[in-house]
C-alpha cells in the first residue's frame, strides 16, 4: 500500500509546474457582484473608481458566467462585492452556481442579511459564509466601517449561520487601529463557532493605499501579531483553522500574488470586465475583455491582460535569474506599477528590489506618525480628498 497523503492547497496557490497550470482552468473565480456597500471601510479592496449600479451585469449575465465557470473547470466561486447581498438576485446566482457544480462562498459584511434570506441561500446550495468584522469592540468597529450598529448586526448574522448549520469563516482585516484586539478577535471566532479565521493584514492597494498612513502598523506590532497567531494555531488545533496574511511591507520576499498571474484566479467585476486580479485595472496598458462580448474560457486563455504577465517570460532582472521566480512570480504587478512605474519590475516588497529599502522606510515613517483621518470608501470621496 502506498502512503496516504493529502496535498493541501489554499485557493490561489499551486504546486503544479507553470506550463501545466497555465493550460488549465483557474481554481477560483472572484465574482464582484456589485460595488454597492453600506459600509465604508477605508481599506476596501475595490478600485477607487467604483463601478456604478447602472453598469452592473444583469441576472442572466451572471448566470451565464456561473455556467461557463462550471464548464471551464473552475471549482470555487467567491461571491463578493462591494456587498453581494445588495443584489436582489443573489438567490438566482447562487442557485445557478450550485447547479454548475461550483463550491459557493459568500463573502459578506452581513449587515443587509435577514435570517430567512440566509436560510433560503443555504437551501439553494450556498456552501460557506465568510463574514467580515472590523473589530470586536463595537464602537471601534462601527467607526472603522462608518456604519452604526454594524458590529451588533454582524454578531447576530454569525449566530444565524451557526443555527442554520452552515460553516463560518470570520474575516478580520488587521491594521494599526484594531491591532491590539487580535487576541479578542481569536476568542470571538471560537465563541461564535467559526471553523476558520482569516487574520489579514491590510494589503496596500486602492483605498488602503490612500489610507496607508492611518493603517500601517509598526514592525514591532506586526511581529507581535505573528507570535499571537502562531501560538493560537497550536492552542486551537482541531478547533479553529487560522489563515494569516502578512503585510508585505515587512516581508523579505514578495507574496506570490494571485498564486501567479493568470494561473489560479479569475476576477469578474460588477460590469463584467474580466481581470487577472481585482486591482489589475491600475495597470493602464492592459485591455480587459468583458463577459458580455467574449466567452470566459477564451478570455482566460487568450485575453491580452491574462497573457501579459502569465508565466515567467516577461520578467526582468533580478526576477529573471532568481531561483524563487516560480515561487513568488516576482510578487505583485500592481504594486510594482504603483511604486516603480513599471509593472514588469520586481515588486518592491522583495528585498532584491532596488526600491526595497526606500519602501521599508516609508512603512517605518508612516507607522510612527500620528494617524490622519480616514478617507472613507464612497463614491467620489477619494477625488475630493486629493
Amino acid at each position, binding site marked *: 500500500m502506498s502512503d496516504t497523503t*493529502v496535498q493541501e492547497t489554499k*485557493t490561489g496557490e499551486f504546486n503544479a509546474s507553470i506550463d501545466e497550470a497555465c493550460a488549465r*482552468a483557474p481554481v477560483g473565480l472572484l465574482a464582484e457582484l456589485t460595488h454597492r456597500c453600506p459600509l465604508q471601510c477605508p481599506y476596501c479592496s475595490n478600485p477607487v473608481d467604483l463601478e456604478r449600479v447602472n453598469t452592473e451585469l444583469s441576472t442572466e449575465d451572471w448566470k451565464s458566467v456561473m455556467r461557463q465557470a462550471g464548464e471551464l473547470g473552475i471549482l*470555487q466561486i467567491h461571491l463578493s462585492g462591494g456587498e453581494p447581498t445588495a443584489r436582489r438576485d443573489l438567490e438566482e446566482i447562487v442557485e445557478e452556481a450550485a447547479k454548475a457544480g461550483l463550491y459557493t462562498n459568500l463573502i459578506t459584511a452581513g449587515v443587509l442579511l435577514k435570517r430567512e434570506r440566509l436560510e433560503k441561500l443555504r437551501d439553494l446550495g450556498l456552501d460557506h459564509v465568510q463574514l467580515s468584522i472590523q473589530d470586536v469592540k463595537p464602537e471601534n468597529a462601527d467607526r472603522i466601517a462608518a456604519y452604526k450598529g454594524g458590529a451588533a448586526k454582524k454578531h447576530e448574522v454569525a449566530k444565524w449561520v451557526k443555527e442554520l448549520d452552515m460553516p463560518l469563516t470570520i474575516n478580520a482585516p488587521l491594521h494599526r487601529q484594531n491591532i491590539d484586539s487580535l487576541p479578542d478577535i481569536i476568542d470571538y471566532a471560537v465563541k461564535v463557532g467559526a471553523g476558520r479565521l482569516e487574520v489579514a493584514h491590510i494589503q496596500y492597494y486602492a483605498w488602503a493605499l490612500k489610507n496607508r498612513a492611518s493603517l500601517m502598523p509598526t514592525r514591532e506590532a506586526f511581529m507581535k501579531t505573528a507570535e499571537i497567531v502562531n501560538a493560537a494555531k497550536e492552542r486551537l*488545533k*482541531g*478547533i479553529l483553522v487560522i489563515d494569516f496574511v502578512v503585510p508585505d511591507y515587512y516581508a523579505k520576499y514578495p507574496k506570490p500574488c494571485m498564486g501567479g498571474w493568470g494561473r489560479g484566479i479569475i476576477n469578474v467585476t460588477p460590469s463584467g470586465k474580466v481581470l487577472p486580479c481585482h486591482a489589475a485595472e491600475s495597470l493602464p496598458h492592459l485591455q480587459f475583455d468583458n463577459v458580455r462580448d467574449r466567452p470566459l474560457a477564451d478570455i482566460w486563455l487568450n485575453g491580452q491582460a491574462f497573457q501579459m504577465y502569465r508565466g515567467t517570460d516577461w520578467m526582468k532582472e533580478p526576477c529573471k535569474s532568481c531561483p524563487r521566480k516560480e515561487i513568488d512570480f516576482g510578487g505583485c504587478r500592481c504594486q510594482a506599477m504603483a511604486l516603480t512605474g513599471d509593472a514588469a519590475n520586481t515588486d518592491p516588497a522583495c528585498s532584491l528590489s532596488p526600491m526595497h529599502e526606500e519602501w521599508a522606510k516609508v512603512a517605518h515613517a508612516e507607522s510612527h506618525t500620528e494617524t490622519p483621518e480616514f478617507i472613507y470608501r464612497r463614491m467620489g470621496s477619494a477625488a475630493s480628498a486629493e
Partner: protein
Amino acid sequence: MSEPNTPKRLIVTSETVLKLPRHIKLRHDAGRGRWILLAPERVFEPDETSVEVLKLCDGERSVGAISAILAEQYQAPVDVITADVIEMLQDLTDKGALKS
C-alpha cells in the same frame, strides 16, 4: 441561542466514526484527472488510497473497520495500515474536513 459550548479537538482513534461535514465535498475533478476535497478557501488533493479511506468515512464505519477493509485489500498488516489511516484522518479532522 446560547453560545456554543467550548469546542474541543477531536482525537482520532480506531473507535472513532467519521464523516464529511455537509460543506466538505469529495468530488472527481474531471478536467484535471484527480479527486479533490473542496473546503472553504481550500482544495485538498488526496492520493488514491486516501480517496478510498474518505469514501469509507460514511458516519457508520469506525476507523478500525475502515483500516481492516484496506488491510485485506492491500494484503498489509492491519496495525501498520491503522496507524497510517489515523494519521491521515487526524490531519484532515484538524483542518476541519471531517467530523464525528
